[in-house]
């Protein structure tokens, strides 16, 4: 590691900034009175963010395609979740499908 002081500064910047993001959402929400339709819209926005997070973490690595094994596993989990399989089954199936595909040589 090169410059400890600089690394500490970066670490503290990331920590403080992340906390500011986490803290300001609830504060803003309490200060501003949102009408009911805006509340449901905000909740939909959280679902949209989470779905985009699923899509990007399942399909991409860095700026490129992650390879088919991981999205195949996540897709298998998604199908099981849609059919109301238990959470445990969904998550373990996703990992298992991905692991088996990798064992077979799929990246």
């Amino acid at each position, binding site marked *: *590691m090169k*410059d400890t002081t600089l*690394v500490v*500064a*970066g*670490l*503290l*910047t*990331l*920590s403080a*900034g*992340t*906390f500011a*993001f*986490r*803290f300001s*959402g*609830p*504060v*803003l*929400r*309490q200060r501003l009175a949102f009408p009911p339709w805006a509340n449901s*819209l*905000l*909740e*939909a*926005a*959280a*679902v*949209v*963010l*989470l*779905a*985009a*997070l*699923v*899509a*990007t*973490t*399942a*399909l991409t690595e860095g*700026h490129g395609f*992650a390879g088919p*094994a*991981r999205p195949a*596993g*996540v897709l298998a*989990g*998604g199908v099981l*979740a*849609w059919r109301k399989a238990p*959470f445990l089954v*969904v*998550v373990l*199936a*996703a990992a*298992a499908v*991905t*692991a088996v595909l*990798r064992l077979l040589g799929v990246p």
Partner: protein
Amino acid sequence: MGSVFRINSMRSIYRTIAGGTLRDIALACLAVWFIGLSYGAIAVASGFPLWVPAAQSVLVLAGASEFLFIGIVAAGGNPIAAALAGLLVNARHLPYGLALPDVTGPGRGWRRLLGSHVMNDESVVFALAQEDLPRQRAAYWACGLGVLLCWPAGAVLGALIGSMITNTGAFGLDAMFPAVILALVVPALRDRVTARAALIGAVVALATTPFLPAGLPVLLALAGVLGIVTRKRATR
């Protein structure tokens, strides 16, 4: 944090949410612990001393941004620039806070501070999946505190074990995080309007990932919500 208070609040968490949900939260935390193992191992393998992943895992408590920070600095990047890139990844916590009901519960001081700090993808998605506010609060705190324990514990152990376990890909562990989040948003996606917005958002995020810095594509996914807004306007 007084231990009496902690015991009481854990007891009330246990009473409020069903055993099944608590078991699901435990599994999600276990997955976080595994990812923490690989994070600590990768950090040490990249030349960082143990205290860097240890301090980050407690103070930042947001996995993707920590991986990014380690990666950029290890590749020779400036730590401040790496911190800014990590902040871009973590900016989604602001809209999370706007979307959540008052999950931290009454009380201002440390409880509000800790409640903000334990906001992460998992605690948010578990809270949103509950039906009423008491359950949302209980799930949020249980998952948030669980991640606060498991992520640093995994990171430190991973850093100690070192490079033995960098190959988490072989066990498909990298598929667990998206599967955890997906399993929990599926019920919300049964609503057609939300599903369409989510689909548009996911396509926008995927299409922009090759060109934009990490974190920005997920924020741009919020464009999917515009579809709902224009629909609402039209029906009024």
